[in-house]
């Protein structure tokens, strides 16, 4: 029986063949490049953390380059190697991403830096930055915070696959393990070409939203920074009060449009950029995504208006916050604790609607998190079929999506995913409440972290931050973020693989 960790195997004359070391190395190199860019930004903006950023870049680059050069990707990739590679690369990159926070001296505690980094890479947008931290942080560091989200959005593995010369089927498996959603469309016959096109679309989209934000009159630093977290549906903002800083309908409108596009499938965006914008409407998932959000906005506005708000304000708050949670972005438009945008103080009915959006999240194939609209759709169809079957137990009813019949194995896998998702959220809620949080803060925190949302309800609302959780609780939340970002199965499988490997080693002793 194979007793080495997955993917590691020595051959005398060649390099170490390990997909996870190689992938992690590549990811670190990209991260280092990002850190160097931030050092430049810091220099331009007159910050004083250039050295810290350059230092982080240096350490990360040396480590990454060593890992990359010393290894090569084996030709055949068993599923477990793929899952472990993606998962481990993410964790290692997140650890490296914490370096700038530590080396520039902003955070002294490792766990706060690590949490911020994970929250960034997983596009969650839950922050432990307090208003003081924002005041102390240099422009370069704030830019790094935004950039982590941008990297994490499209996926650092997709980026790696894009530049790897040829990966064959294994590459697609890698993308699949990282990409949000149960399916991943190929935009081109070659996997690396698919990855390249995805990243091209991503860059174009980022540039466009940065320009749109610039037009609204916010400065270039904020515009670029926001656009990085916008297209990745991340939710970090360079200002302490997030979008609430500007208190501007124009900025909010641009952000809403950006979030909605970011939360929709990038395959559809690619088609639209290639001149087929109507493809959006042909996708039943997109129709559900948009109509669901429209219904949500109406419902929330009604609940808010019924609680005594003006209609205009209700609509504005409902539209922004449904969009921010329905796309798992997590920007806030609260101008302060208890202000209209602070949904932690809204009427419960509106909060419950928001919780549902936090649970479902955006579309498959987008940068968003959550359970995904497609899965919710399929589950609704499964529920409907179950009722029909109760009347006629022997009737055969296939589940269809976009007039294509889904195989029972796909349906079963989706049902399993939803089940696992709920089990993990419930388990984490139990852990968070046993650690002393109230039920609302624990439950909404778990749902929010698992769906890569950002803000939660209760004490961790949009006008507050995740510093309300203790370090141990934040580690639980950070784990949930990675589990959620990588779509549950890869992380859980990695744990299973590593556990069984460790067990075998122990038995051998």
């Amino acid at each position, binding site marked *: 029986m194979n007793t080495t960790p997955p993917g590691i195997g020595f051959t005398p004359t060649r390099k170490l063949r390990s997909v996870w070391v190689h992938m992690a190395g590549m990811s670190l190199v990209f991260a280092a490049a990002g850190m160097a860019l931030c050092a430049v930004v810091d220099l331009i903006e007159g910050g004083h953390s250039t050295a810290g950023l350059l230092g982080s870049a240096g350490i990360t680059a040396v480590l990454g380059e060593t890992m990359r050069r010393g290894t090569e990707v084996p030709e055949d990739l068993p599923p477990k190697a793929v899952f472990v590679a993606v998962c481990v690369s993410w964790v290692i990159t997140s650890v490296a991403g914490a370096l700038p926070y530590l080396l520039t001296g902003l955070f002294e505690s490792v766990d706060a830096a690590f949490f911020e980094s994970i929250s960034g890479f997983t596009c969650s947008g839950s922050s432990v930055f307090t208003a003081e931290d924002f005041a102390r942080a240099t422009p370069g560091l704030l830019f790094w915070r935004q950039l982590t989200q941008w990297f994490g959005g499209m996926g650092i593995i997709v980026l790696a696959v894009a530049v790897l010369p040829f990966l064959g089927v294994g590459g697609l498996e890698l993308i699949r393990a990282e990409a949000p959603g149960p399916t991943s469309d190929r935009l081109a016959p070659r996997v690396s070409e698919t990855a390249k096109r995805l990243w091209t679309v991503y860059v174009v989209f980022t540039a466009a939203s940065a320009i749109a934000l610039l037009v609204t009159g916010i400065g270039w630093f904020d515009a670029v920074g926001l656009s990085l977290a916008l297209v990745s549906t991340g939710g970090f903002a360079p200002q302490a009060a997030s979008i609430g800083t500007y208190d501007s309908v124009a900025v909010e409108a641009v952000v809403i449009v950006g979030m909605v596009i970011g939360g929709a499938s990038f395959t559809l965006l690619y088609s639209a950029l290639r001149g087929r914008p109507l493809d959006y409407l042909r996708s039943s998932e997109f129709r559900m995504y948009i109509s669901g959000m429209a219904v949500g906005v109406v419902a929330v506005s009604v609940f808010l208006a019924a609680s005594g708000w003006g209609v205009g304000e209700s609509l504005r708050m409902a539209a922004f916050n449904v969009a921010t949670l329905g796309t798992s972005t997590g920007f806030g438009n609260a101008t302060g604790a208890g202000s209209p945008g602070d949904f932690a103080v809204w009427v419960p009915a509106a909060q419950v609607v928001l919780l549902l959006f936090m649970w479902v999240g955006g579309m498959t194939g987008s940068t968003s998190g959550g359970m995904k609209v497609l899965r919710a759709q399929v589950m609704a169809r*499964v*529920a409907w079929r*179950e*009722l029909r079957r109760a*009347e006629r137990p022997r009737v055969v009813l296939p589940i269809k999506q976009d007039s294509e019949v889904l195989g029972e194995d796909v349906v079963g896998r989706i049902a399993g995913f939803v*089940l696992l998702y709920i*089990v993990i959220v419930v388990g984490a809620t139990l852990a968070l409440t046993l650690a002393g949080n109230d039920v609302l803060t624990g*439950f909404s925190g778990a749902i929010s972290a698992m769906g890569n949302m950002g803000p939660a309800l209760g004490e961790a609302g949009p006008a507050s931050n995740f510093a309300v959780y203790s370090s141990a609780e934040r580690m639980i939340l950070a784990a949930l973020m990675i589990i959620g970002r990588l779509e549950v199965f890869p992380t859980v499988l990695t744990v299973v693989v590593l556990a069984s490997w460790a067990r075998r080693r122990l038995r051998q002793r």
Partner: protein
Amino acid sequence: MTWTPAGRVGDPPESSLDIGTPRSPRQSAEANVAGLALLVAGGALLASALADLTGTSEDALSLAALGVASVVVGLALRHRFPLPARITPRSSLRTAAVTLLSLIGVSTAVYLLTGTFTNLEQAVMESTSGFTTTALTVITDPESAGRGILFWRAVTQWIGGFAALATIIAVLPFLGVSGPADAQTRLPTGISHLTSGHVRRLLGRYLVLYSTLTLVGALMFLGGGMGPFDAISYAFTTISTGGFSNHAGSFGRFDSALLEWLGVAGMFLGGLSLSVVWSALRGHTDRVVGALELWVYVGLITAATLTISVVESPGLTLAENLRISAFTAASAVSSTGHYVTDWSLWEPGLTMMLVILIGVGAMSGSVGGGFRIVRGVALFSYLWRELATQLRPRLVGVVRVGREVVPDRMVARILGYQALYIATAAAGFVALAAAGTDVVTALSGSVSALATYGPALGDLSVGRPVSDIGADAVVVMGVLMFAGRIELYPLLDGVISAFSVPVRALRRFRGRRRIASPDGGVRS
């Protein structure tokens, strides 16, 4: 519309059960079974009248009159509508819903005519809570009510418990889900091979078992120091996992350690699968030992008891601490709703744990509610197989519960049930919040009502009258309890029927328009 023996013209036969049996228009399973239920309710009302005579006797006359009326109507229904020889799945669904509704109707009349409530909503809620074996009550001070009414309340839960058993024995197998919890067919076995004779025999057996357990419970409580009236009432509400109480403080009122432990035993019995009880009585120890669900049930209660005792220990002795913990844990897992202390004030983690346990619920084939442990175990086994197949795509695995293999067809049905359960709970969550409750109350209330436990967190904590959450929210809770007690299908089927009538009409209208269209569009 033309009706043939097998249903509407052109429809495929709904199942092999109903081929070639002429169905006269007078035959109706719905009316017949509802009539039977009314007969039983009538008998119970007469018994309540007798019970009232031992107390103040003020309601005896109205109870007796209603009892006679209920018996007469029941007999008339049974005479007018004989039971058809074959019942379609659809009709069995409707039968379950109609029977429960008619029972609730009788009980509402009882509460209104005896003047227990002057408000229709409250009477309906108390009746629904009774027949769905949920512990939510509108009565703040039960001791002020007459003995007849108290007895009737308790008996509604007992009847409701058996109605629930009848649903899982006689209705669900027709639907291909969650078959009877017979010793041989402990697991859901798909479309039932059971003949109606077999169903009748099973129902008879379960009735005897259920009554025996109730008798055991009554004797236990009597021995523990309750008066005969309380002993019988509490046996009714405990073995049925109902949770109504003759006193404002539930079991805590007796202030007796022995009675509380006996309450734990009673609730444990209530949540126990009757097939396991049957196997035990028949001496099939291997079947009892081999029933994984039983061990999970015991394990959940034990683990919860220990967790509560460790986390929540406000200056109590070990014995007191264990007793309170065990009582609360057994009440939650068996979905009963009796209490000795307001557990919603405990550490948030413990309250969350209890809500989860309430959602998981009791054993299949028991009177208890919830998602049912066996489904949970099957789903975990399914998840494990799913993970294994992702690692080794060519692996062919099976889903098991203990030693028994669950066929894939059945797994698909359980996954479907899971989707239905989640959707219903989520809808209840939103509806409760829209009706004005806070988020935590809405979440825990939705789970608790669907599991027919009743009390929950926030405004729904134990000992508070359910009317505290407002009339709209009470209606939502009532609907959820109803859905939970009859395993969702019958209620949701009614909802679908209500929706499908206009949808079909619309389709027919569209179809006609298409035929009439000049370009000769294809008829769909």
